[in-house]
């Protein structure tokens, strides 16, 4: 079962900050999904040959978050946190942990 991690984003975190962090964490942009009636806009990145996927969900302030899924989601989330912490543009992160999903909790200790 794949893990999933969600990271909430502080309003001060810009799209540039997210793209910088994604790149620093070795994610590559693979798709941009415009907002639709049923879903907000998303930028989708992958790494590990597509095994780990990062969704940057760009909705209203309350909806802005990162969703990381895949077998290595925990490590990828950790890499992203480090990237935000190290990012010159975003200072002391401005990133909040949105809480892990059930999959993560089940999967987290197994690696």
């Amino acid at each position: 079962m794949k893990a999933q991690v969600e990271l909430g984003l502080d309003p001060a975190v810009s799209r540039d900050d997210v793209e910088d962090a994604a790149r620093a964490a070795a994610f590559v942009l693979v798709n941009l999904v415009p907002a639709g009636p049923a879903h907000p806009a998303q930028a989708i990145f992958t790494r590990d040959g597509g095994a780990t996927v990062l969704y940057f969900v760009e909705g209203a302030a309350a909806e802005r978050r990162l969703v990381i899924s895949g077998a290595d989601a925990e490590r990828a989330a950790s890499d992203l946190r480090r990237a935000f912490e190290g990012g010159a543009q975003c200072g002391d992160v401005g990133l909040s942990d949105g809480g892990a999903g059930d999959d993560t909790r089940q999967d987290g200790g197994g690696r």
Partner: protein
Amino acid sequence: MSPTPPFPLRPRLAEHALARRHLVDGVERVVIHDARRGDLSTLEPRAWEIVSGADGTRDLDGICLAAARAGAFHRRSEVRFVLEALHAAGLLADGIAEAPPAGDAGEARPLAVLPGFALHCDASGACCGVYGTVRFTDEEARRARATLPTPLHHPADARLFMPDHGSDVRGGALAVTMVDGRCAFLGEAGACRLHAAAGAGAKPVGCRSFPATFVDDGHEVRVSVACECACVLASAGLPGGEPMVAAGARCVGDLRLTTPPSVLPDRIHITETATAARADFVAWSDAVRAALSGDGPTDVPSFFWALAAGVEAGALDLGGLDDALCAVRPWAPGGLGAWTAALRTRAAAKRVASEVWRSPNDRVRRMAGWIDAAARALDDGAADAPLAAPGAPELARDEAFYLRAVLFGHHLAGAQPLATALRDRALRCLLARHVRVPSGEPESAQRHPLAAVEALMRGQGMDAYVALVAR
């Protein structure tokens, strides 16, 4: 001034945007020339990877994804920034480019070759290092890659060819990377490495036919020469040499050109407000050429200038021809100062721009320095009569040959009205008289400075100075 149009929904580089990849002292960069205004913009290679995705089919998000696939994506805002900068410079268009109209190939049109001329090439490769573009067809590029896969010995070998116009490389002409201003396939000793490796047939047709020009006047295709290489001027009047077209070539179809001859339009602008029929222009041009004595007019610049005045006064009436032929020095034509001032401005801008991004080893940069100095000297002296006569008999011979090549080849019918083109040619001759090529340069360049002027005018966009002339 017209307002900037809205940012394109699906941007691409406009047809007048000529992107060229250069290695400058080993550093890769992309330069975009604005063929309409003569300006240039420089881009880092990664920025070009972004721009190359803007092919008129993708919106901004699509360009971001194309850049990501090319490994060039960092930020969406950066993609937008790069494209907006190009848009502000007038270098973007919207949507896919329209295919050029399929013209009359005119394969059966007979050839008329400049009489009495054959080329003595000195094989120095000088002409392979003065142009902004060395053009290949897609097939020629593939053949060149197969012959010499890594001519640069640099990672840029993977990106050897750029689109000739705009940003789409599919099917059209391609421009090869330049190394310190020289063709990537030019060897250190001045010989073409494609030629050395696989024979003359391995070179692009444009290189094989250089310096010939081909202009279809509706009756025949005039084959003349561009006087942009010292070898051309040095060849004038010499026996022997390489003919301009292969023995036995009688019509356009025999030439196997990859770019068809340019075609004179049905109506030709002779002044800003008047046009003439193509046949009348051809008759005028031939009559002027026929009226020249064996040695040409006394003074070629004054002849060009007097012809311009005649065209402005009486269309293509040849009544003033005798006066033009008799124009004698000292010579101080009215209005010359506006032309020399414009030339000075453009030459200074060209020198400064060259110094910003070109290598000191780049011949174009050095030539821009010579031309700038000459333009200043010419402008400083323009108010004083008489203007300097040719300093050497060779220069006078070059001017006379140039006049014949220009008239025979219909080079005066182009983007500018005939009267303007005539004054422009007068200025080029005057400028050449002031060019002082340093002693360390090839002797042929020192003896034939008009070639450097001509090369920079057409090959490097110096001719945009005409638009600066205050009228």
